[in-house]
């Protein structure tokens, strides 16, 4: 029992997206009103976005923006600095230690940052989704202007009789 519970908890993100997707798909298949179908399509889209974003998540990682300390030094500069630090070493060992700590701080660890790719894909998908939702609503307006209704069965009836 314990293991099943922990298994479900470890895959909770998939459960959330599947439930959202089922709601959206049901609205698209079973609803009679075109606007409700469009709403269902939007919910379906949200489910896919949630799925992608949850895939990009990593435990113990932060947002994909590097903690940086300015522009990375060109190689020549770094060598000069190393030389200067070697001379500094005669004056005091502390500065060298500080430099080493700084260098370790600048190194990028992959495990520290979440996967940026799903975020990139979904960023554009959200805006494109809004734009295509506009097209869907425009089509709905045209259908209403032509048939005087947004109910699918009434439109079908008019098509058959006319």
């Amino acid at each position, binding site marked *: 029992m314990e293991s099943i519970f922990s*298994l479900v908890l*470890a*895959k*909770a*993100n*998939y*459960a959330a997206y*599947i*439930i959202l*997707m*089922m709601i959206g*798909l*049901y609205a698209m*298949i*079973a609803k009679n009103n075109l606007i409700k179908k469009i709403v269902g399509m939007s919910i379906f889209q949200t489910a896919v976005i949630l799925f992608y974003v*949850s*895939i*990009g*998540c*990593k*435990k*113990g*990682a932060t*947002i*994909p*923006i*590097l*903690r*940086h300390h300015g*522009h*990375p030094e*060109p190689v020549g500069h770094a060598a000069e600095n190393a030389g200067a630090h070697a001379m500094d070493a005669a004056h005091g060992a502390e500065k060298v230690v500080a430099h080493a700590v700084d260098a370790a701080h600048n190194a*990028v660890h*992959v*495990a520290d*940052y*979440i*996967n*940026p*790719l*799903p*975020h*990139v894909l979904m*960023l*554009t998908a*959200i*805006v*494109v989704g*809004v*734009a*295509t939702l*506009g*097209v869907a*609503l*425009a*089509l709905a*307006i*045209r259908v209403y*202007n032509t048939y005087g209704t947004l109910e699918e069965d009434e439109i079908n009836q008019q098509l058959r009789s006319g």
Partner: protein
Amino acid sequence: MKILGKLTILLCGVLLMVFAMEFPNWGDPESPASTHLSPYFIQHTMEDTAVPNIVTSVLADYRGYDTMFETTVILTAGLACFLLLRIERKKIPHRYYRHEPTGVTLRMEGEKYPKNSAVFQRMDANWVPYDFVISRTCRLIIPFIQIFALYVVAHGHHSPGGGFQGGVIMGASVILFAISHNLRTSIKNFSEKTAALFSVTGVFIYAGTGALCLLFGEVFLNYSALAPILGGDRVMARSHGILVVEIGVAVAVTAVMIWIYYNLSSAGKQDEGL
């Protein structure tokens, strides 16, 4: 039909749930999605493009083609709304005017209508009185929303943000103006022609930046070729090139959002609307 639909959906859901159990756990650092391609982006962004925000650098540089055509898709959506709703122009048979000093409402029919003035004011058919508090509050906060939108665009290299987000915020500020006042006032300030011109300009800036790289002897959208114009070394040129492209995206997204709103809220007539 409804029962059949419910059964199909339930079957789909159960099947998906069964196979989802084989997927990697939530937040697993060793999952296939985060072990193949993304480590390269995380480790090389700084030396390739000098942009700390990995999402921005992947969006506008590594996957520049994809984003260019996403912007084109948004432009196409705006054009589709325009062509669906705007082409068939039916004349509204009558208009309503309000005589301010006396408060009399007039219904006018015919071809010629009086010009709008402070005394003789045009009204929507389903007119609601202006709410003073709402319109003044919106006038106060809209400039701040727009400054925030510019910040989101300009600071996309170092914090969450970029062309798409900033463009949507900018578009939302104009839509807020249209909702809090009326559609005609908004169109007077930001006309449909401006929206169409800006949405094309945005895509043109993006594609033009790519084409400029061709002129400098590099491949399409390789911004490091622009180092002689933009200044700095080839890595910083990529960073500046990303900014130029993001500005193009922001202009296109802003204009298309406003354009779609104008057409949808007035069903293409752009005369009376929300």
